[in-house]
């Protein structure tokens, strides 16, 4: 851990360090939120699909099925 290079005042270094830490935590939390969003989306779609399978012919959900499948 050798140093050198640009020297800043203690205050500006503190601001720099705080900003850097916040940026890294935002990156990390962003991924956690993205995971949660993706999980909710997959679960919702899966639930809808499962509901359609048993009584599909009787209830005539052909259009809904085509919309979900992107047909």
């Amino acid at each position, binding site marked *: 851990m050798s140093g050198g290079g640009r020297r800043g005042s203690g205050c500006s270094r503190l601001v720099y360090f705080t900003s850097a830490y916040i940026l890294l935590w935002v990156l990390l939390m962003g991924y956690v939120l993205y995971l949660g969003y993706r999980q909710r989306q997959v679960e919702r779609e899966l639930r809808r699909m499962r509901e359609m*399978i048993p009584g599909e012919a009787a209830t005539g959900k052909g259009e809904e099925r085509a919309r979900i499948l992107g047909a």
Partner: protein
Amino acid sequence: MMGAVKTTRASGAGRPNHELLVAGTVLAMLVALYLVLVWVPNERTMGIVSRIFYFHVASAWNAFLAFFVVLVASIAYLWRRRLPWDVLAGASAEVGVLFTTMALVSGTLWMRPVWNVWWTWDPRLTTTTVLWFLYAGYLVLRGAVEGEDRRARLSAVFGIVAFVDVPIVFLSIRWWRTIHPQVLAPGDIRLAPEMLVTLLVSVGAFTLLYALLCAMSYRVGKARLELDRTKARLHFG
């Protein structure tokens, strides 16, 4: 096999093991943050900016761990042909790319006040950037290939080949002339005891975080697989 996967609680929330992992990770991260932000003294020449080091090394270590898991899971898939191994490889690669991104960003943020540049084509930085692109490409490949078996087979081969860059990144500071500091050389640890303790706790906390994120991503991957199969059943059933 995979069709029987239960996905109504894909987050794993409510399971004792998951709750234990969440609690352990939060506790370890709080201890690590206390050590990094309060307990450990500043490095003499760099001052407070040196504290980014603990975040940087922990991220890099976990990126290596994540890609090693991708390697093991890829080999296991090719050997056993069981899709959960492929899902694990995909989940671990995703978290690995996140940690590599954090290692690169934290390295850049640390480098600027110390070396007075945002970026330099140093061997360690260059090979790490190549690593990031390799596994980002791996994720793109997983999203682009149709058919779960074909996707799993191609991804497994890619995941094994891409791992070649990990030892190159690790050894780059010994093989080539570099300005990247070599703090943890074998038999020669150039750290004060407080710094070493803080570093080890940070690495431990980030390893738990890796396990948690990988488990979450794995469950989402399994749910995604079941969704694809349900869609196929609707198509052909």
